């Protein structure tokens, strides 16, 4: 485990450095001058040069890169050139709803997928299994954004949540019930896409695990069915489920961004899209870095958990 941990950590640092480098490139390989983007109509050569000097953009590229890496490593994103607001403040406003949507939708998807997949795997090719398998294969072909946009009206009428998208977000610390209610529709819509993937992966793996020889062995020893299921079969089956969570993260982020833009929630996706329209390169850079880091950290945690669950993975 120790060597595995070190190996994963080295890879983590390497990936974070690469992400930083690419986020840096996005700004600095741009055609044109950042000062021009900030001043827009008011741009004159003198003003632009003065602004570049005050922002440190006149220094050699490698110096800029070093100071940029230093700042990013300290989570010091500086002040927005365009709005004049500290970027960390913008981020602290838009991160919570996004993180909450991601976490709660995953929780909901897993809570639904694991029992249903177990039910299906206990009788493979049974009626429930066949129906669920067919249904989930069909749902696999429905992109999350279609689910989000189509489910909005029926769900909102059923739950009695008002149809107005914007402004309904309430911070969790203020009123947790109202907070969850305000995000309920995006969370339900997002969980469907993840649920389908988790259900299929876990079902397939559970069926394979239950056919394994050690299960036959356990049965012949007279161990009860539930104990076989929970103590023997779940552990090997959850490895694929964990990696599916990691792979699913990309689609989930897209879905979350779209949910934010459809429901006009002030989250990371909405902020990023706003920044791309300006275009506010500094904010784009910060958001890309923070989102990428969070996703990479989640994948890192999943890697460690996989290594813990299946020691064979962490051994070589």
């Amino acid at each position, binding site marked *: 485990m120790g060597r595995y941990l070190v190996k994963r950590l080295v890879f983590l640092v390497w990936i974070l450095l690469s992400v930083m480098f690419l986020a840096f490139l996005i700004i600095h390989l741009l055609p044109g001058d950042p000062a021009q983007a900030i001043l827009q109509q008011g741009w004159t050569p003198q003003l632009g040069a003065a602004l570049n000097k005050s922002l440190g953009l006149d220094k050699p590229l490698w110096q800029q890169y070093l100071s940029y890496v230093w700042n990013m490593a300290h989570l010091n994103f500086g002040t927005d050139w365009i709005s004049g607001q500290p970027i960390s403040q913008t981020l602290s406003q838009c991160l919570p709803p996004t993180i909450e949507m991601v976490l709660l939708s995953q929780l909901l998807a897993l809570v639904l997928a694991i029992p249903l997949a177990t039910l299906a795997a206990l009788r493979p090719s049974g009626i429930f299994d066949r129906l669920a398998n067919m249904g989930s294969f069909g749902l696999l072909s429905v*992109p999350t954004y279609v689910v989000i946009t*189509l489910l909005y009206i029926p769900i909102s009428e059923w739950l009695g949540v008002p149809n107005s*998208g914007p402004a309904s977000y309430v911070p969790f610390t203020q009123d947790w019930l109202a907070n969850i209610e305000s995000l309920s529709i995006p969370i339900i819509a997002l969980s469907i896409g993840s649920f389908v993937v988790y259900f299929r992966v876990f079902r397939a793996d559970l069926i394979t695990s239950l056919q394994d020889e050690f299960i*036959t062995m356990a049965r012949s020893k007279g161990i009860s069915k539930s104990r076989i299921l929970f103590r023997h079969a779940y552990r090997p089956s959850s490895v694929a489920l964990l990696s599916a969570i990691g792979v699913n993260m*990309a689609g989930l982020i897209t879905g979350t961004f779209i949910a934010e833009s459809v429901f006009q929630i002030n989250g990371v996706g909405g902020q990023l*899209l706003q920044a791309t329209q300006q275009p506010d390169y500094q904010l784009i850079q910060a958001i890309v870095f923070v989102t990428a880091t969070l996703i990479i950290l989640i994948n890192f945690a999943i890697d460690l958990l996989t290594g813990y669950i299946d020691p064979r993975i962490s051994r070589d």
Partner: protein
Amino acid sequence: MTDYPPPNHIQPSPFAQSPPAFPREDHSIHEPAMALETPGEIDNEFIKEKRKKLGWFFWCCVVWFGLNVFVAIFVNFLPIQDPTLEVATDPNLPVNSGPTAAHWLGTDESGRDIFSRILHGSRVSLEIGFGGMLIGFAIGGTLGVYAAYRRGRFDSLLSIFMFTILAFPAIVFLIAFSAVWKPMDLNKIIILLSVASIPAVYRVIRGSTLAAASREFITAAKVQGASDFRIIFKEILPNILPTAISFFMIGVATLIILEGGLAVLGVSVPPPEPSWGNMINEGTTFINSPNSGVGPWLVLFPGIAFFLLLLSINTIGDKLRDFFDVTEGKL
């Protein structure tokens, strides 16, 4: 050319006529599936050699997919309304109408015919799906086969590079790049998406090449003195083709979904071009202003178009993989 002897020149082994050490038909491979609840009848089914069939649903999907391809190619010659014809140029067009005889799937808020826009949109989806995956396979697939066959330093360096890109959250970078690389057009989207697909293709192709290259018949071919070129094209490629084809189809579906997502966010092919994602993006206004008169069909029909195309592509990929899946026991 013939630098190795054809098989019939090999002297027959004196043991050739002796009976094989193990019986050919070894049914122990086809053990019955053991679940917690194993009904006894399953046993017979598994011992019987099942003839593989693609099934009627597969052919339905092939037909639907073919129809999409046909429409995408010949859409300009089909007798349908111009997808960009607006109420501004032709005041007789109905605005925000539901399905009627003249407009089968209704019209949007500027009077454009949704049916015609959906037909035109299939071109964008298919071009992006297939264009992106073809580039992805041309680069990622070639590198994957080569790296897995060569091994050594080339393989390890390339793999580190590819796995680094693979660990990047592609969507965040795609949005950021679409912001700095303005104006967006179809070719740029295809390039961005194929760059995102190269590492995934590389990983899959490299993995199956590694598995194929370690098999005995590759060693046999090498011993016979076959050239690398021959081994790669005649021995390895046919063996990784089933995996490659099904992954290609899944990849096409993934790219179509991804492009749709970017379009719904408004950062893909710019609006006048009809694409399904753009249509959903325009249709979402009905959610935020329910009284604007925009109907749910604006989202519903492109959604159905997405669903049917993706379902057919996924089914084709899935069934082909099952069909070509030759278990080791049968070799």
